[in-house]
């Protein structure tokens, strides 16, 4: 028994080290067994309370996601309702298609669900317009335990002016997935550090090996998120747009350099041609060339690598490191969250909503049901549960481990606003299509960005 406990402790410690969260900062949290068992004990005590002591409360909970996520979340709701019989949770789940429009209409009209899943990119805009849409998790510290989250994770995800308006659903970040068997055969390697220029060299090797193959595939969205933004950040040491000063963090020549790099990727046949890839939009896994192993690697997100892997059942995939230039002023890569969970500021039952989310995040049984349906869990409770089940392995976890080794600055804010995203993405796509020289495109892009900034 004692031995078992010791092993558990060791496993937990190892876990804490490997999942220390963003920025490599070591955890100060005590995540030993006692704390979580205490938490469970109090929850059990709460569970023994009878429904008669409480007025019945009905909460609405809205999220988007696929079938697996829906089933797991529904199961957790069932379990919660058993333990808190006076609380009923009405699940409102759907697809991500149109979710943002619906959420906007609901927030404006005050009809939003008590608990709702939130896209990380949309949140700053909502908070800026009306922070009253959200309840502050810090105001409910007696029912919602924030101590199981890494401080730095909370700070970078859902915190605005010290208010915790959202909590991350998981840990994730940009990722590179590559076909290990093919890569080994050709002699390219993503498992050790490499630079942007190395990518071009590797790309040439792939072309020599088979002229119909490409080293890398990415959609127009990745052109921005995985080349323009990190490249500029590594080059200048600043985020593309600076939230505090509302100014550009780069000069025209910097942008010309990035665009020239993108041009080279396409001119040298390193990246798969835009005209082939663009039709597959957000889902690179539906490209027959990916399925038929014509690409060695793909840029993506830790939450999508499993989809890419599953799309090509014949492949043998691994998560790779991400490119960093020599003498980079900022690593440019950082980890963040796939979504947040929020409680509506207009809800009449914020406390009960917080109680549910506490169960959702900090109950070991709930964590075992939820597993990684919203990426690697952000809480120590969730991580322990997943480790215990032996499911914290595989390509998604590997890519989260990799992204956590980078210490780049999180550029959430102006740089990630939809309008800026559209401008940068258009610029990169134009160059990828060979329409307009990098110099011309850089000029027009800068004028669009400055125009945008002047309206802020």
């Amino acid at each position: 028994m004692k031995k078992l406990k010791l092993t558990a402790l060791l496993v937990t410690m190892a876990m804490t080290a490997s999942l220390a969260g963003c920025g490599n900062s070591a955890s100060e949290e005590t995540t030993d067994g006692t704390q979580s068992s205490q938490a469970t004990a109090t929850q059990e005590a709460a569970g023994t309370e009878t429904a008669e002591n409480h007025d019945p409360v009905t909460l609405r909970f809205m999220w988007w996601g696929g079938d697996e996520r829906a089933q797991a979340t529904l199961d957790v709701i069932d379990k919660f309702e058993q333990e808190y019989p006076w609380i009923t949770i009405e699940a409102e789940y759907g697809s991500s298609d149109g979710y943002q429009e619906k959420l906007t209409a609901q927030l404006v009209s005050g009809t939003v669900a008590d608990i709702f899943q939130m896209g990380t990119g949309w949140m700053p805009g909502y908070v800026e317009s009306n922070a009253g849409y959200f309840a502050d998790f810090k105001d409910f510290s007696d029912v919602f335990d924030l101590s199981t989250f890494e401080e730095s994770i909370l700070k970078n995800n859902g915190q605005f002016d010290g208010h915790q308006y959202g909590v991350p659903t998981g840990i994730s970040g940009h990722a590179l997935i590559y076909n290990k068997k093919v890569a080994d055969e050709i002699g390219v390697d993503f498992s050790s550090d490499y630079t942007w220029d190395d990518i071009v060299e590797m790309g040439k090797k792939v072309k020599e090996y088979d002229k119909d193959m490409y080293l890398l595939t990415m959609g127009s969205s990745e052109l921005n998120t995985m080349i323009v933004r990190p490249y500029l950040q590594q080059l200048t040491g600043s985020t593309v747009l600076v939230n505090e000063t509302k100014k550009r963090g780069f000069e025209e020549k910097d942008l010309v350099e990035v665009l020239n790099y993108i041009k080279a990727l396409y001119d040298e046949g390193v990246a798969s041609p835009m005209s082939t890839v663009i039709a597959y939009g957000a889902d690179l896994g539906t490209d027959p060339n990916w399925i038929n192993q014509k690409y060695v690697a793909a840029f993506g997100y830790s939450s999508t690598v499993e989809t890419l892997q599953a799309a090509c059942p014949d492949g043998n995939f691994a998560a790779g490191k991400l490119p960093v230039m020599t003498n980079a002023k900022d690593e440019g890569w950082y980890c963040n969250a796939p979504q947040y969970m929020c409680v509506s500021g207009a809800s009449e039952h914020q406390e009960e909503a917080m109680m549910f989310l506490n169960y959702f995040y900090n109950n070991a049984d709930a964590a075992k049901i939820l597993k990684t349906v919203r990426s690697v869990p952000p809480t120590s409770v969730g991580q322990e549960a997943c480790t215990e089940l032996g499911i914290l392995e595989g390509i998604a976890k590997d890519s989260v481990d990799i992204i956590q080794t980078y210490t780049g600055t999180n550029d959430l804010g102006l740089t990630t606003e939809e309008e800026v995203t559209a401008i940068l993405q258009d610029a990169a796509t134009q160059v990828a299509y060979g329409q307009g020289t990098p110099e011309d495109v850089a000029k027009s892009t800068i004028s669009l960005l400055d125009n945008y900034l002047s309206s802020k």
Partner: protein
Amino acid sequence: MRKKLKKRNSVSWVTYTVVLLIGLAMLYPIIWMFFATFKSNAEIFGSVKLLPSSFSFQSYIDGWHVNSKITYTTFFKNSFVMTIITTLFTVLSSAIVAYGFARYQFPGKKILFGILIATLMLPGAVVMIPRYAMFNKLGLVDTYWPFYLQGLLSVNSFFVFMLIQFIRGLPRELDESAYLDGCSDLKVFVKILVPLMKPALFSAGLFQFMWTYNDYTNVLIYINSVKKYTLSLALRLSLDAESVVQWNKVMAMSFLSILPLIILFFAAQKYFVEGIATSGLKG
């Protein structure tokens, strides 16, 4: 006479062959979809072959049972309830309004007709949120009433305009002679015009049925509870860039959801293709 009519209406075998060949191309998408319900993701996206490597109806069973809480039985039921009621309301209301516009010269008619057409011209995206706010004030969010009410009050004037055009194609002498015989205004409409408008009413009904049945954006905005979801919402439940989508399930349910529309069209066409010519009435 009869023989001549028949001759005029038949086609040569060349035309017939061409019609059938093009028809085959028309059928291709749905045939592809049917076979896709048996394919793996890699087969759907990675290969151009039409036929699946194996046949198993498991995708239909799995797709039908969305999760432990709900199945497609609910979604089909919801879609039918919402669509049928909305369609009936729309056709009824639009026909009456169209009659008023087409056959009467009330004051301000020209302006009102102008407004009727103008309401079609503003893109829906910008009225979406004010309209949502309004239905919310009326307490109708998360019910089908926004759809019923819009049908009942002919908010989509497409159908009114369409029926006006059809009524104007009918000789005025018909209803005016009935009016002279002492029929009331309503009776003229019900007894004389409605039977003649049958093809138009059925095509209007068909369109409204199809559009309501397939509507995603509006249903998404107004309906919150999963147990009230219609098929169009349900079909997108599984779609998520961050999880592995089993496309055969999605295709299977898509295919099943299209079948009622095809059956409806097939069954209803005998009504909208029977016009004056076959109903024996002469103008």
